[in-house]
């Protein structure tokens, strides 16, 4: 992926940190997910205004011993996976109104 991607937490999920992991329940299908500590950092940074590569560079590469290219590949895969389950919104534009994005997706 060469384009800048913006990511935002879906407003229709429930989430809580439990120990080092993030627990997420999607309203769609009532599925429970857990995110490991690295994925949790990405999730917490997904505010709709920050691009995925900025999150990876500022919050993941600075915390963990991992090169940017490899971390970006993993982050893109994770973002796609979370988006498929309806718990993360991904867009090439900043995501300001998360409910609007969801309505457009339906």
């Amino acid at each position: 992926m060469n384009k800048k991607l913006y990511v935002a937490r879906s407003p229709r999920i429930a989430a809580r940190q439990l120990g080092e992991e993030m627990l997420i329940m999607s309203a769609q299908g009532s599925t429970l997910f857990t995110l490991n500590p690295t994925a949790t950092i990405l999730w917490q940074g997904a505010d709709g205004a920050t691009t995925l590569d900025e999150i990876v560079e500022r919050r993941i590469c600075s915390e963990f011993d991992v090169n940017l290219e490899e971390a970006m590949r993993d982050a893109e895969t994770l973002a796609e996976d979370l988006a498929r389950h309806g718990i993360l919104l991904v867009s090439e534009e900043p995501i300001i109104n998360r409910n609007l994005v969801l309505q457009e997706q339906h």
Partner: protein
Amino acid sequence: MSGLMEEMGARAQRLGVPFSVQLDLTYRCNEQCIHCYLDHHDHGEMTTAEIKQLLKEMADAGVFFLTLSGGEIFLRKDFFEILEYARALTFCIKLKTNAVLIREAQAARLRDLGVQSIQISIYSHRPEVHDAITKVPGSLNRSIRAIRFLKSQGLKVVIANVLMTQNMDDYHGVRALADELGAEYTLDPTVTPMMDGDRSILDLNVGESALQRVFRDESLVGNAEEFCAPPHALDEDSMDSTPCSAGHTACYISPYGEFYPCVQFPLSCGNVRQQKFIDIWRDSEQLKEVRSIRLRDLSSCSQCAHGGSCTRCPGLAFLEGNMRGPSTSDCERSFARTGIPSANLLAKKDKVSPPRLVQIQLVPAITGSRLSGLASPVAAS
């Protein structure tokens, strides 16, 4: 419960996290169900600001599953303001309601707010039976209409069917109604005492033979032979386990801020109007006592043949006078399921009953079938 859910529950218990809370927003109700365990008068409900402060404290403490219940939650004018605030704190929210106040607009709002599920009480598929239990004419039709609105928004609806003498023959009809509406269905075959300990509503419980029929209905229990198989006693490993999640990963808050281990366990542990939620959760002496109980500490249950498969409720045991004692209604369920009496039932049977002073209510001379109902003993001490 899924494996991941069990794992998360166990982790929450290890970390001392209050994973799941039921918060009753009001005890007021627009139905007057004959089996209800609540006093519906308002004795000073928490304000909107108090509830928001509590929700913030609960989120900070790690609460994930939040059930908003009552009374009827939609009677609170600030209900959507509370719900919106709770969702902004990313709780996983389940609502319990009779749904009679839900129209299209409310259903759409619930969907937009990402509510996980809505549990709705339905007692019969027949209006004359359901409405006689709620004491509100037209209530069944209004609840059904609301379920259609909720389902049209793609929301998960669970129909909860409490079984009692008035509706004991109707659960197949309610189940078929749930299927037709695309709702899930759950059956509770027992009526529990009122919060203040009043046990008079227990008379509404279905009899033993009806309970046996329910437990042998394969459309409800799956393999009846397996479900009703002879019980197994507690093994040594299980002796050190805890009886249930009440006070360990779960608790209940009343509309007045009282903090209890569970909605069915009226042991007051503090009040969130006077103390922070987390301080009560961590430091309450009552909760520490509840948490100290292991299955081996239970006076008769640890030796009971049903020990390994019993659904004993510590709250109901507490209402009987001893949180370490048996819960007779669970003993009766175990007996109806397996035909084998519990240690508690056997001990009760062995006790020599003292002579009972029975007062017979005097009734006017009447004839025919009404006699048997009215001339029964009304008080014994």
